[in-house]
């Protein structure tokens, strides 16, 4: 068990998934969807591709829980970071909506 070389998954299948998802990503930005839909789709595709790379190419699927926890930590921190930054971003975006020049004058708090 421990120390043994783990089984190699079907790498070519993962490669085709990644290639097809990349084609989807490029197709989506030309698709007649709303901006929000496109962003959500692109985000989903990117996360799927990243998970495929981590799970199969980086063998995370076959590793111990310790390594899995190390790998998930930055994802948690990044998610927290987004929720820390988003409210401020939306507040400024709301205040400056439709007023292009307003951005050059920094908002006073």
């Amino acid at each position, binding site marked *: *068990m*421990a*120390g*043994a*070389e783990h089984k*190699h998954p079907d*790498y*070519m299948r993962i*490669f085709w998934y*990644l*290639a097809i998802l*990349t084609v989807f*990503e*490029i197709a*989506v*930005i030309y698709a007649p969807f709303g901006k929000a839909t*496109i*962003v959500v789709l*692109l*985000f989903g*595709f*990117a996360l799927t*591709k*990243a998970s495929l*790379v*981590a799970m199969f*190419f*980086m*063998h995370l699927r076959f*590793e*111990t829980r*310790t*390594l899995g926890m*190390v*790998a998930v*930590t*930055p*994802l948690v*921190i*990044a998610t927290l*970071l*987004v929720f820390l*930054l*988003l409210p*401020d*971003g*939306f507040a*400024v*975006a709301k205040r*400056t909506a439709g*007023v*292009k*020049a*307003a*951005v050059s004058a920094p908002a006073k708090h």
Partner: protein
Amino acid sequence: MSPSASVHSAVEPAESPLTPESWGKLGMWIFLAGDAVGFGVLLASYGGMRLTSADWPSPYDVLGINLTAAMTFLLICSSVTMVKALEWLGKGDRTKCRIFLFLTALGGAIFVSLQAYEWSKLIHEGLHINGNPWGASLFGTSFFLVTGFHGLHVTGGVIYLVSIIRYVTNRQVPQASYNAVEITGLYWHFVDLVWIMVFTFMYLI
């Protein structure tokens, strides 16, 4: 238990359920987690700057995505050659392993070259670190910062790969370098993974 596992427990008497299969691998994962936070901060602050800017240019109009899509595909291919190198090493074929490691390094070198070409083209068109003709000046700043940081990682990866080819060559038995090649692979796939994110956030969205 495989021979390597018994050697491992001999040098590590205080084995616990948390003891990793390979300390080197754990070390690389911890480094990559830290590095991922670095990239996470860069991308999150990019999102923050973009959201608060009213004149952020549309990235795919300014940057163009044809070349970058090809670069993305190239990096995915180099990830496949990396796993193939490890697979052949596991089977004891050192020559095939070295060929695939070389192809991986070549893929990385072509990627960096294409990035240099892309940068010089964009700089020529007016995209600078302190301003550009299309809108928010932070657009150029963040573009060069994030893609440059990633490009440095790829450059480091190419050097890492070339030195690991030497390492594989110098071991007496092919299996002796298996762990080291697997750790190199972790770094290389991470660089690919980060590019997937950078490509999506800085070029497509």
